[in-house]
């Protein structure tokens, strides 16, 4: 009904998503998504396919804050990398099946997110970004110092991939992809559920008008902390699967450029779109992979340039722009007089 308003609103997040229950696009998109999810390791090298999903969920976790709560975290590497190490340590120490280790890693990420969130959500905008960055740097520093635990610069090597003795999954990255994808899918479903819940309604209200939300009796800071911790858990889930997939956790997972990269992936996909993260991850990860395998040195420069071009051309990111085009097309067809 209200699609007609689209043109006048700048960043239009309230519109019924093209994935909403009544949307005729929903079955088509869900089916398409499922097909891509299943076929991905046939089309590209399975570990790269796994990387895409991990980075996709990582970006979704950032979008939950940036797009839906209005908080730009510049320290999400803390949760991705923190979980990568925690997952690795759990898997190495106890030899548990890897999904258990990953859940442990995600729980660790949520645990450290509580104090970090508590201390950072009082700030907004660039100050929030700086506080989260500072905490992530602290964790990086700790991981670098605690060599006995983390292996320092060498990272945590040889993380086992135990899965109930099913060798295909433990040994073969093609089959492992499906087990890992199931975990990522759980994370995506949680993110989708959160965004489309009463809680999701409140956090978008907090994003749009915190003073009004407070006057209604909502404890804005608590809701922000809640969103922060959920987001950290999802980033942790992604980082844990990533560590298992690669069999190691390194400082690269905790370094500040990783926090920057995931924000880039999120913006590229489209802020406030949720699904955009997966698309952004698809672009960035495949690009980096193909550039790396061609022996090209200036990967960062190329991805940076592409980022600038896409952000300039498509203000709402790849997903957001695509969605807008589809909507406009639908509206045009609807408003055209019928012969």
């Amino acid at each position, binding site marked *: *009904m*209200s699609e007609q*308003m689209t043109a*006048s*609103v700048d960043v*239009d*997040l*309230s519109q019924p998503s093209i994935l909403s229950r009544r949307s005729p696009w929903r079955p088509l998109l869900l089916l398409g998504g499922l097909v891509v999810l299943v076929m991905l390791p046939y089309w590209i090298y399975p570990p790269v396919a796994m990387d895409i999903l991990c980075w996709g969920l990582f970006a979704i976790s950032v979008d939950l804050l940036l797009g839906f709560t209005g908080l730009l975290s510049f320290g999400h590497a803390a949760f991705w990398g923190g979980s990568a190490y925690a997952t690795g340590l759990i898997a190495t120490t106890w030899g548990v099946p890897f999904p258990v280790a990953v859940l442990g890693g995600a729980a660790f990420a949520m645990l450290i997110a509580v104090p970090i969130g508590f201390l950072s959500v009082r700030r907004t905008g660039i100050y929030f970004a700086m506080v989260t960055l500072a905490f992530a740097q602290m964790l990086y520093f700790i991981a670098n110092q605690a060599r006995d635990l983390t292996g320092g610069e060498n990272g945590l090597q040889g993380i086992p991939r135990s899965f109930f003795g099913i060798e295909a999954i433990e040994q073969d990255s093609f089959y492992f992809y499906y087990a890992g994808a199931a975990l990522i899918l759980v994370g995506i479903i949680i993110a989708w*559920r*959160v965004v*489309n*819940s*009463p*809680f*999701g*309604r*409140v956090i*978008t*209200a907090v994003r*749009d*008008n915190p*003073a*009004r939300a*407070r*006057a*209604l*009796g*909502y*404890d*804005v800071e608590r*809701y922000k902390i*809640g969103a922060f911790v*959920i987001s950290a858990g999802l980033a942790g889930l992604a980082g844990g699967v990533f560590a298992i997939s690669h069999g190691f956790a390194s400082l690269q997972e905790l370094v500040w450029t990783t926090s920057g990269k995931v924000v880039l992936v999120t913006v590229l996909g489209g802020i406030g779109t949720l699904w955009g993260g997966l698309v952004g991850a698809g672009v960035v990860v495949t690009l980096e992979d193909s550039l790396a395998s061609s022996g090209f040195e200036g990967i960062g420069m190329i991805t940076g340039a592409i980022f600038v071009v896409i952000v300039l051309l498509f203000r709402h990111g790849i997903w957001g722009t695509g969605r807008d085009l589809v909507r406009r097309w639908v509206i045009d067809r609807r408003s055209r007089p019928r012969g």
Partner: protein
Amino acid sequence: MSSATPLLETRSLTKEFRGFRAVSEVDLTVSEGSVHALVGPNGAGKTTLFNLLTGFLTPSSGSVLFDGRDITGLAPEQIAPLGIARSFQITSLFEQMTLREHLELALASPTGMGRQWWRPVSRMSVFADRSMELLDQVGLADRAGVPAGSLAYGQKRALELAIALALDPRLLLLDEPTAGMGIEDIDRTITLVKRIASGRTVVLVDHNMHVVGSLADRVTVLQAGQILAEGPYDEVRTDERVITAYLGSAHV
């Protein structure tokens, strides 16, 4: 109108902004069930006083008592559930949210439903009927499904009222509910506030003396952060000091 127990009381309430006293030693008493108007020239400190009452600002000194309880220094989200709701002088809505969603959000607040992240958002439609009732009260029922951003100015002010009402407050603080309205909207708002006020206590800031005269049982005149005069409307209106304070101001 009874002078029994004051519902709201401030004691030497003061707010300083870097040495500048926006609200100075204000002793305000609002009795239960009354409509109390707060008037005064721009910059007199009316909005600042509202912010102090609702926790958006912390007083530099003095205290606020609501129903005999000291609420000084509480946060807005702690004060709202006690039964104090406010409208904002500058319309403060969620531009992209529909009208019904605004009311559902307000109605859900005391129930704690907002914490449910694992439930579908459609659960909030348990408040749909009440939302429609409230929208109907302010004459916006037919706009229930449109985003607030697309409303006309007067309609936004009416939505502010509906939202404040959704909290079913004992004390309703209205900051210039008719500002910028045309004469028709103003009369509609007066009728509306009269209806709302039954069974509640209302503190109202307004520059329009027609509005104040029609609604207020008592009037407090604020000037430069201080109480200049207080009493029934007809008394205050003819007060020498008040006339002087307003002289040259376009509002009287």
